[in-house]
């Protein structure tokens, strides 16, 4: 074995291969930073290029990209608050809050180091794939997969926050979004309104971008150019290093959670990130800082997401079952080079196996190093008025969303869900439980159904199920024990620490509208559900009945508290309307004209740039976006009325 380890390292140090590895890494880093474009986009864009290289170089290039996406996305999440990829949504919540408190360096440092550990953990797991990981993957039958998803949803309850009704309603909303499309249990297409676009359900990227990214961009544009805001400084990495060291065991545990997420097909990095984040909350005594800038939240989620994307390769290499979307493309590349993954490949091509391990390990370390080097420079960019950053951000999110199916539906969904996310933000419905509900709805339903079909109810007693269930049971028992021991003593209830922000009148209006819309949507969905097969009704029922009751209760509360807005300075609805008009214009007259119009409006009306720099900057942004469209999709959206793109 040892001779293969060094033979593979020797093979990798070939200059062309190193160049390919680092080239792939750079592409991966850039795509990790661009919100909505992640590992899948990076690997897809590299795919045609690898056919001009030899097999080892080509695969090293893809691995370089896969290994760093979840490292560099930390930068976007922390500095801008828009998740660089769906799986870094917890980092966007905690990290951006820390950045606003002037602690961006701490957040970034912990994020990079945790990502590196996650990547190395993934590499280690690949190294022991044959003797250790293979049997573990075989032990994870459908009941275990269901339990894993269920634990994730249970942990999501930790993120509900101070207002129980809004938190659970948001989770129900997420579950509801997650059941749109084909039911796994029977041949029903749910809530598709006859639209082919919805036959596959919503795309995770678009849901994450809409709920978090668009809402943040709207606030940025509303902040405009003249409003003062404290620049984010990235200096003094020391605090980050010491925070990382303090939380090293948490990072390690999170990486292991991430690795298990990778073993499970279809439960991707986003799910295991939330599970790890939930674990961080459960294992932290003072929970008051979660949601407002808790470094442990970043340590856990960044440790997990990078470990997952690497561990995704384990089922890919052992069983030809890709653990995630980027791994699926990697599998295709292996096929194209004439490698057919399976138990035999690893014994037949040990050099390739160790080349993969080395590539992943090297990229994880070097990638984190590069992130440390470039983060201070990138942080300086945030001193530019928000409006100027928001312009390319919105357009890149459009490009990212358009990767899903490259139909106009992608763009309508992006801004439609953006409007929903924006309303949730201002009505103080937490968006994290919604995203978790969305991510876990379909694996939970699918594995529950399959488990019951195959095993009857006996699956509940399988050892694997019991072990995974203990992730919930043991902390719960510990909490009861602590509660019993501390009975009578003064309790600091984290949940009771309510932020005493007086809700503005605008927010009351938005609360009213959101509660009304959600009530109508849930009521309609319950009616439509009556036409489904019984087995397709179970999961939506879990979301819709409690969801409708809560939404009606919130509607009642909103009406009770309603006060009509007097002279409002609230500019955000205007921006939302402009974005919706932009989406419609894209559909009607194509990409070029509305985009130039939107850019001019954002740069001059919102960011108050001066004429010449504004025009130059606008032209550069437009050029880059146009190039991205061309490289990724081959074409930009074409207008229905004009036939122009």
């Amino acid at each position: 074995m040892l001779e293969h380890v060094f033979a593979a390292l020797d093979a990798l140090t070939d200059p062309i291969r190193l160049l390919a590895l680092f080239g792939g890494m750079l592409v991966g880093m850039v795509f990790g930073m661009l919100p909505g474009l992640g590992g899948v986009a990076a690997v897809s864009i590299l795919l045609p290029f690898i056919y001009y290289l030899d097999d080892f170089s080509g695969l090293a290039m893809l691995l370089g990209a896969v290994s760093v996406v979840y490292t560099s996305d930390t930068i976007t999440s922390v500095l801008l608050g828009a998740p660089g990829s769906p799986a870094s949504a917890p980092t966007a919540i905690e990290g951006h809050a820390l950045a606003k408190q002037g602690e961006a360096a701490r957040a970034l440092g912990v994020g990079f180091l945790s990502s590196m550990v996650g990547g190395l953990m993934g590499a280690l797991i690949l190294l022991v794939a044959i003797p250790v990981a293979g049997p573990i993957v075989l032990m994870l039958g459908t009941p275990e997969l269901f339990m894993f998803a269920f634990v994730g949803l249970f942990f999501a309850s930790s993120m509900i926050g101070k207002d129980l009704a809004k938190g659970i309603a948001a989770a129900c909303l997420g579950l509801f979004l997650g059941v749109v499309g084909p039911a796994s249990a029977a041949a029903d297409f749910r809530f598709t309104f006859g639209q082919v676009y919805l036959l596959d359900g919503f795309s995770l990227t678009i849901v994450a971008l809409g709920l978090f990214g668009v809402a943040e961009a709207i606030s940025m544009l509303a902040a405009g150019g003249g409003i003062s805001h404290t620049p984010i400084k990235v200096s003094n990495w020391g605090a980050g290093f010491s925070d990382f060291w303090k939380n090293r065991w948490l990072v390690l545990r999170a990486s292991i959670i991430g690795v298990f997420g990778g073993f499970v097909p279809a439960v991707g990095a986003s799910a295991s990130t939330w599970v790890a984040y939930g674990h961080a909350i459960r294992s932290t005594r003072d929970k008051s800082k979660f949601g407002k800038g808790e470094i442990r939240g970043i340590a856990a989620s960044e440790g997990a997401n990078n470990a997952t994307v690497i561990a995704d390769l384990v089922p890919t290499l052992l069983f030809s079952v890709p653990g995630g979307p980027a791994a699926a493309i990697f599998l295709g590349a292996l096929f194209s080079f004439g490698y057919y993954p399976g138990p035999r490949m690893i014994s037949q091509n040990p050099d390739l196996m160790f080349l993969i391990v080395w590539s992943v390990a090297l990229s994880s370390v070097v990638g984190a190093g590069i992130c440390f080097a470039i983060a201070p420079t990138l942080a300086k960019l945030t001193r530019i008025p928000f409006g100027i950053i928001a312009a390319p951000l919105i357009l890149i999110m459009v490009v990212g969303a358009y990767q899903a199916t490259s139909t106009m539906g992608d763009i309508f969904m992006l801004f439609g869900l953006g409007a929903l996310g924006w309303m949730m933000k201002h009505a103080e419905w937490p968006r994290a439980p919604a995203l978790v509900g969305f991510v876990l709805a379909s694996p939970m339903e699918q594995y529950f159904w399959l488990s019951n079909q195959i095993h009857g109810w006996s699956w509940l007693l399988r050892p694997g199920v019991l072990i995974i269930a203990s992730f919930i049971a043991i902390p719960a028992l510990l909490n009861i024990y602590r509660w019993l021991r501390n009975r009578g003593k003064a309790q600091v209830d984290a949940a009771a620490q309510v932020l005493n922000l007086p809700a503005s009148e605008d927010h009351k209006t938005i609360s009213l509208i959101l509660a009304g819309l959600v009530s109508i949507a849930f009521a309609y969905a319950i009616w439509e559900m009556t036409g489904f097969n019984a087995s397709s009704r179970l999961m939506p029922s879990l979301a819709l009945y409690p969801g409708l009751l809560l939404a009606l209760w919130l509607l009642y509360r909103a009406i009770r508290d309603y006060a009509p807005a007097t002279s409002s300075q609230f500019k955000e609805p205007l921006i939302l309307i402009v974005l919706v008009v932009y989406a419609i214009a894209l559909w009607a007259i194509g990409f070029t004209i509305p985009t130039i119009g939107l850019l001019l409006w954002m740069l001059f009306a919102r960011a108050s740039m001066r004429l010449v720099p504004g025009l130059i900057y606008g032209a550069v942004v437009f050029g880059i976006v146009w190039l991205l469209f061309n490289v990724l999709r081959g074409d930009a959206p074409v207008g229905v009325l004009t036939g122009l793109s």
Partner: protein
Amino acid sequence: MKTATSIATLVAVIGLSAGAANAQEGYFAGKSIDVIVPFGPGGATFVSAKFLEPYFEKHLPGNPEINVIDRPGGGSILGANWFEQNANSDGTTILFTTSSTANPFVLGQKGVEYNLADYRVAYSHPFSAVAYTSPSTGVTSAADIKSSKTPLIYGGIAAAASDLPGLLSFELLGLDVKSVLGFNGRGPVRLAFEQGEVNIDYQFTPVYLTQVVPSVEEGKAVPLWTGGSADADGKLTQRDPIAPELPSVYEVYEQLNGKAPSGIEWEAFQGIASVTYAYGLTGYMKPDTPQEVLDIFAQAVADINADPEFQAESQKVTNGARLSAGPATEKAIKTALSPSDEVRAYLKDLLATKFGVKF
């Protein structure tokens, strides 16, 4: 993700286009052909399209540049609808797809905008399927499939998609198989088989060769039969070259019942299985494509099949499967895409009553 332009850019950058610049003779000289795959990159259809790409570039007259472009979504319906609206009718746009696109058309599913039966067939590649079972059932060959010790459990994705011919074969053979549908790919089903959760399974060519064959050698799987391959009339009576030692479904029926299969169950299996297996991966062109283009492709397919390099590579990847094209292939596919009203009614009724599919 579309890779067309990036390939073009790269080719331009590194100067590989120099060869194409020599004014070449031939119908497609200086042109490029877009092969639209309505599934994601990395999937079996995409990989097959990439596998065939260099051979078409080599053997089509004028050596056109071929771009494989993926347009996933809607279970392949979105990509096919896009093709219907945007494809050229001169052979420069090809829809390369599977029964996942054909079955919704045959069954008249909502949202289908393409009239696949009117399309021209440029070329086709078989997509063999092999049924196998677990030794725990006590079954040792196709002949004693009805004397299984344990209930047979089959894992699938959705009744109306690529599982349909497998389910129809169980109907035809009169097997009592419990079908658990709802997996999200044949890979996870394969894993569930290894884990002992399901015990009868169909797998397609590459996975059969790389995963199932080793399992058979280790005594962890028992091969049963293949879907069969087409005879001169397009009937699936022949053994499949991927596993010539195994009987076809047709033969298994004969063995179990002492007569050749007939009737509505056979008609339904024959129609659906031929677009899933024998003509599993098919390149379609718009209905008004000139016959000249179809003839050019038929010639190119003959040249590719005769190319020793293709023969050697396909031996490795598909056990030597060959492309087919020309009037006989087109006729067989069009027949399968236009089943009789009785067959259509039988399929709809079976799917609705047994699998809860709504139309």
